[in-house]
C-alpha cells in the first residue's frame, strides 16, 4: 500500500468510528500527538497527588484520612494506566519520566496552585476532579483504543473522588462561620484555575481542530468548559456558596451559564513555569524519584538473587 492509500484507509476507519489499535498503521503525527497528550495526562495524575498528599498527615479525622489516602492511591494508579497507554505507541516510560523530572514536560496547570487549607482538599475533589471527569468522559470515546479503555477504567473511579470532595464541602458549608469562610475562600481561589484546566479558548488552541478531526478529542476546550460550568453552578448554589464571578449569568434562551472573562495571562505564566508552585512540584518529584532509587536497586538485586538460587537448584537436580 502506498502512503496515500494508507492515509485514506486510516481516515475511513476514523470516519466509521473504528478504534485504532497499537499495531495498526497510523500517521506519524497522530502517534506523536497522542504520545504528547497521554504523557501530559499521565504526568498530571502523578503531580496531582502532591497538593492532596500534602494534607494526608493533617486530615481532620481518621475517616477523612483513609478517604484521602485512598483517593491519592487511585491517582497513582491513573498515572500508571496512562504511562502504559503511552507505551503502546512506542514511547519509553523512562524517557517520559525523565522529561518531567527535567522540567521539559507539561502537566495540568491546576496543580501549580498551593493547597493551603483543608477547604482546598474539599474543593479539589468537588471541582478539580469533576472537571477531570468532564474531560475524561469525553475521552472514553477517543479513537485510540488503549487510551479510550484507560479512560473507562479511570471514570469508574473518579466518582468517589468527586463525592468525597462534595461531602467535605457540604460539611464545611453547614458548619461554624469559620468553616463556612474556609469553604468560600477555597472556592474563591480555585474557581478560575479550574476553568483554565480545559485549556485556552478555541480560537487560540493550537492542537484542537486536528485532534477533533482525528476523534482523539470529541469536544473543544470551550465546549468542555461550558459543560463543566453548567454542572458546577447549581452545585455551588446547593452548597450555599458564592461563585467568585460577578458577571456569571444564565442565558435564558440556551439555559447555559455564561462566565465572565478568564485571565489568560495567569494561565500563560503558569505554562511558562511561573506559577506559585511550579518549581516546588518538580522539585518534590525529583526528590521522590532520586530518593527512591535505592528501593528500585534493592528490588533488582533481590530478583537477581532469586534467579541465581533457582539456577543453582536446577543444577543440583
Amino acid at each position: 500500500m502506498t502512503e496515500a492509500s494508507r492515509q485514506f484507509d486510516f481516515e475511513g476507519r476514523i470516519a466509521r468510528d473504528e478504534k485504532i489499535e497499537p499495531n495498526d498503521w497510523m500517521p506519524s503525527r497522530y502517534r506523536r500527538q497522542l504520545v504528547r497528550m497521554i504523557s501530559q495526562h499521565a504526568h498530571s495524575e502523578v503531580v496531582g497527588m502532591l497538593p492532596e498528599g500534602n494534607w494526608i498527615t493533617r486530615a481532620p479525622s481518621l475517616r477523612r484520612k483513609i478517604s484521602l489516602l485512598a483517593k491519592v492511591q487511585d491517582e497513582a494508579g491513573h498515572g500508571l494506566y496512562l504511562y502504559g497507554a503511552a507505551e503502546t505507541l512506542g514511547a519509553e516510560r523512562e524517557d517520559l519520566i525523565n522529561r518531567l523530572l527535567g522540567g521539559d514536560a507539561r502537566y495540568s496547570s491546576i496543580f501549580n496552585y498551593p493547597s493551603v487549607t483543608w477547604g482546598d482538599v474539599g474543593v479539589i475533589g468537588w471541582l478539580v476532579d469533576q472537571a477531570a471527569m468532564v474531560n475524561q468522559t469525553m475521552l472514553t470515546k477517543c479513537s485510540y483504543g488503549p487510551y479510550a479503555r484507560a479512560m473507562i477504567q479511570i471514570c469508574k473511579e473518579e466518582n468517589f473522588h468527586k463525592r468525597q470532595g462534595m461531602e467535605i464541602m457540604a460539611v464545611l458549608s453547614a458548619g461554624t462561620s469559620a468553616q463556612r469562610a474556609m469553604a468560600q475562600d477555597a472556592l474563591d481561589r480555585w474557581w478560575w484555575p479550574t476553568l483554565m484546566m480545559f485549556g485556552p479558548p478555541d480560537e487560540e488552541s493550537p492542537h484542537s481542530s486536528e485532534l477533533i478531526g482525528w476523534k482523539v478529542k470529541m469536544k473543544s476546550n470551550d465546549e468542555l468548559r461550558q459543560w463543566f460550568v453548567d454542572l458546577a453552578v447549581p452545585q455551588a448554589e446547593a452548597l450555599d456558596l458564592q461563585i467568585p464571578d460577578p458577571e456569571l449569568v444564565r442565558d435564558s434562551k440556551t439555559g447555559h451559564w455564561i462566565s465572565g472573562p478568564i485571565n489568560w495571562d495567569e494561565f500563560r505564566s503558569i505554562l511558562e513555569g511561573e506559577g506559585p508552585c511550579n518549581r516546588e512540584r518538580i522539585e518534590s518529584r525529583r526528590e521522590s524519584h532520586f530518593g527512591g532509587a535505592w528501593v528500585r536497586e534493592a528490588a533488582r538485586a533481590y530478583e537477581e538473587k532469586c534467579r541465581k538460587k533457582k539456577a543453582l537448584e536446577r543444577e543440583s537436580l
Partner: protein
Amino acid sequence: MTSGKVVDSLWEVFLQEKNNSGHVHVGSLRASGSEEALQAARDVYARRGSPISIWVVLSESIVASTPADAPSFFDPKDAKSFRYPNYYKVPRTLKDA
C-alpha cells in the same frame, strides 16, 4: 520428558472483539510454535462475532495468583467501603453529574 515424546507447548488465547474492549481470555490450545498457535486460535476461538485481534501467549509466561490465596492476597473489599462513591453523604440537592 521421561518418555522422550515431543509435546507441543500450551498457549493461552486472548480475543479482542470490535466493541472497544481489551483482549479477553477465551481459552487455551496446544501448538508447536507461535504461527501455528495463532492460526489454531483463529480456527477454534474466532469462528463467530467480529473479532479484530488475537493474542497467543505461552502459558508458562503467565504469572498468576491462585483462587486459594484470594482471601489473603486481595484486600477484603467490604472493609474498604470508603473506596466507593456511595460511602459519602451529600445533600440531595447537590445533584450528581
